[in-house]
């Protein structure tokens, strides 16, 4: 079956559902149910994370092909199989998902007091969907997980969200659904043309360039919304602001990666000609996203909104890196996705810490927090610095590689990406200064408690990762080097083949 000898990926995907079953089975008064739900969810997600560490140790980094492969008949008559596997591109995202879920559950330990049972169920189902999506090697199976994410996310934002939660939940759902259904049509077309939806087999398919354009546009509709790219990013600030802290963490940490992952997994290998054709447009949109959303972020008065806009800017760097089709650009994009997954999640958690205490996300509401909560200020600073890509922290290697890759393609594109780093420093430091430094303007802030042990536990793994990724990025980069090299090579081979055919 695979190098571990048992269906590891399926176990990782569906283990959280076992937790759901346990939580559903618990009877008793509300307090018992709530505490049972919390502990069950935490343990389930922790066990899932422990299991997923097998991937970290047993993954063969020199192998570009899919590993831990599982295959079962599912809709055999239609060429759809339940096919799971990971390669260098997806393996770390599986780990990211399994890491962030227990962190989310821990971070909402006290913040969520209503309908705890449903909350935990939603998060566990969400974990199933996320892990399944990164492992799926069949397009239909992928789509099922990709779309299935919307159901728990809609409920998380809508039930436990802020004031305008209904609007935000609907916007998130309908926006992403609209993009996805167009992709569904493209998947169906591929299915019909190839007679299979197996991704590995689809990679061998040569699609005529004219068709590639249409399929690319359909994929783009879905992935660009998910990334999100300018100008279809407007659902993100709303969703982030209204979501509960843990919802924002998952949204920023994992869900935003789904779009970029889609580009890497599907658009690039399946549609090389169209991808190359559309690359200049993607560059343009990415640079607009970087510059425009950075400027917008400068003007925000809501902490979560500011970080949400910074996410759009960071994802602009990611899409830019992907469409350079160079080893550096792609590796950088992947690394940025990972580091952004860690850092922006941590930033949302930082906001959550303040929000839990003061119940306000307004920047003006704070000031001088450093004097009251010194440990918190330090943690917050670490992640702020990582977000502005300070060398030695997680944000830097990825962005540097993207800029290098972009330089190879076009120096101006590299300039656009670099602009993002400068503006990023501006808005993040501005935020940090206003919240943490300065005089204490509100007297009620003086009573704030510094980080609790639970919060230390939440931040500890993220701090560790942020420093590790900054100091020794190679231990992460080595995971995707082989797969990225294979992807780049195949892309250029396909392009030259297409050029030959064109002659």
């Amino acid at each position: 079956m695979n190098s571990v000898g048992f269906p590891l990926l399926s176990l990782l995907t569906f283990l959280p559902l076992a937790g759901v079953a346990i939580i559903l089975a618990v009877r008793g008064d509300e307090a018992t149910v709530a505490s049972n739900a919390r502990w069950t969810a935490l343990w389930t997600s922790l066990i899932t994370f422990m299991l997923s560490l097998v991937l970290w140790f047993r993954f063969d980094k020199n192998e570009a092909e899919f590993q831990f492969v599982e295959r079962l008949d599912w809709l055999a008559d239609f060429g759809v199989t339940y096919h799971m596997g990971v390669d260098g591109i997806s393996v770390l995202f599986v780990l990211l998902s399994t890491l962030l879920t227990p962190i989310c559950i821990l971070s909402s330990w006290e913040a969520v007091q209503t309908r705890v049972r449903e909350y935990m169920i939603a998060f566990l189902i969400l974990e199933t969907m996320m892990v399944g999506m990164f492992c799926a090697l069949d397009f239909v199976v992928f789509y099922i997980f990709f779309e299935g994410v919307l159901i728990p996310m809609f409920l998380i934002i809508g039930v436990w969200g802020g004031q305008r939660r209904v609007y935000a939940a609907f916007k998130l759902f309908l926006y992403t659904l609209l993009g996805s259904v167009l992709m569904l049509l493209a998947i169906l077309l591929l299915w019909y043309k190839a007679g299979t939806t197996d991704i590995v087999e689809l990679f061998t398919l040569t699609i005529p360039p004219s068709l590639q354009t249409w399929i690319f546009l359909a994929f783009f509709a879905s992935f660009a919304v998910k990334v999100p790219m300018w100008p279809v990013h407007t659902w993100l600030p709303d969703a982030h602001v209204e979501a509960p802290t843990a919802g924002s963490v998952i949204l920023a940490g994992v869900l935003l990666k789904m779009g970029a992952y889609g580009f890497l997994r599907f658009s690039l290998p399946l549609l090389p000609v169209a991808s190359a054709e559309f690359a200049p447009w993607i560059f343009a949109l990415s640079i607009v996203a970087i510059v425009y959303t950075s400027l917008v972020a400068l003007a925000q008065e809501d902490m979560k909104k500011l970080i949400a806009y910074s996410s759009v800017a960071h994802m602009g760097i990611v899409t830019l890196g992907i469409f350079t089709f160079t080893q550096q650009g792609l590796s950088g994009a992947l690394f940025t996705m990972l580091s952004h997954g860690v850092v922006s999640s941590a930033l949302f958690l930082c906001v959550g810490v303040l929000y839990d205490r003061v119940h306000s996300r307004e920047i003006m509401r704070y000031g001088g927090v450093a004097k009251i909560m010194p440990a918190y200020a330090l943690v917050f600073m670490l992640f702020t610095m990582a977000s502005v890509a300070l060398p030695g922290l997680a944000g830097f290697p990825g962005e540097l590689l993207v800029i290098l890759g972009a330089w190879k393609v076009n120096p101006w594109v590299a300039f656009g990406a670099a602009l993002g780093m400068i503006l990023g420093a501006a808005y993040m430091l501005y935020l940090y200064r206003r919240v943490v430094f300065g005089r204490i303007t509100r007297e009620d802030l003086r009573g704030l408690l510094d980080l609790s042990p639970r919060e230390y536990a939440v931040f500890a793994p993220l701090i560790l990762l942020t420093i590790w990724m900054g100091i020794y990025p190679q231990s992460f980069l080595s995971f995707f080097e082989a797969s990225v090299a294979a992807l780049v090579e195949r892309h250029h081979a396909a392009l030259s083949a297409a050029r030959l055919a064109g002659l």
Partner: protein
Amino acid sequence: MNWMLALPEIVLACCGLAILMIGVLPRQNMFFGCTMASIGALVVTAALVLTVPDGAGFAGQVISDGFARFMKLLVLLGAGIGMLMALDFNRREGLDRFEYPVLLLFATLGMLIMLSANDFMTVYIGLELLSLSLYVVAAFHRDNEQSAEAGLKYFVLGALASGLFLYGASLVYGFAGTTSFERIAQALLDPAGRSQGLTVGLIFILAALAFKVSAVPFHMWTPDVYEGAPTPVTAFFAAAPKVAAVALLTRILAGPFGELAAQWQQVIILISLASMVLGALAAVGQRDIKRLMAYSSIGHIGYALMGLAVASDEGLHGLAIYMAIYLAMNLGAFAVLIAMRRQGKAVSRIEDLAGLGKTDPAMAMWMTIFMFSMAGIPPLAGFFGKLYVFLAAVQGGYWTLAVVGVLTSVISAFYYLRIVKVMYFDDAQAPLDARPQTLTMVMGISGIFTTLFFIMPAPLVRAAQEAVSALLG
């Protein structure tokens, strides 16, 4: 003459007559007994359906094949659950008269006859038996103005549709010289036999059947009847008869008129498009959940007809799967609607569901599953229904249908989500009355099917495939 071919129908008819006698003779209320006896009769019939051999009989009037079997089982399932769901509701509303299950039983008999029809005469007998029974049950709450109005409205428009059907059938008879499906098919094989008159006749028949499946532009009765009729009746309307009528439409178009596909395809494409669009747009502003379900069912029929519109094996296959899944999730959703009672009175405004997530978490969860499934969100069953019809549309190159289909499914997601929103995001109202066990059971079974369908889709998919290949020969 092969009696065996019509054995399920004969047995069901005899049972119906017997149950009628049982209901009339004793002095006490026989509603419960008759319902149980009727459900028993349906179960026996279902068992018989499974044993009937393939073939045509009664001078070619009746046919039995895999397609009929598949659809009959769906109809029997829908009808049986429909009767079960009325048990408690009718008692509380004072509608617990023994005629109710008997009428539904005869309606089911009509549907079975429609499904085994191989001749327009047989079709008409089945169709009228179904319609007459339904006219009566729509107005079953006779002291209620709305219910009486629903029954009358349905009757007047239904009679018009029957007239259209007869007119179309007689035109077909006039031009083809026969009402038998087989001989019509033979006549059409010869290009000289394909006269304009046949097409005109076919259009009339199509209009009549579009009325029965409530496809745009013959949908006008649906919202009013759905709203006015007692909720269990609405549940019955939305399930079994829809399946039967869609199956009949499929048999007529794919069977005898297969050669005229180029003609009827245009009509079905238009009907399908219009139904999807209207079903999506008109439901957005509804306040009454029964009306909303009416528009939703119009939309779903649009999707199902997409499978017919592409006129391919895959399309019919998608249609068969769609109807099966539609039936399952609709029954579950209506179980929730029937359970909506507050202080002893049936309520049906969407706001009445407010805060259900707090007051009745189990029911809210099932309803959420049904709503997401109807919106076509994976991994729920409704997604697979849509997947197959869209696949067929893409394979046939019908991009307009496919694109309009996915766009309207996004629009309709909005109103399905609105119900979820009301249940979970809005402030709680007074709790609904405790629901009877029967409804809990229906919700549970339908909900589990809808949720877990993705694990084992193959059996249903294969059964639908066998049904369709039996139809196309």
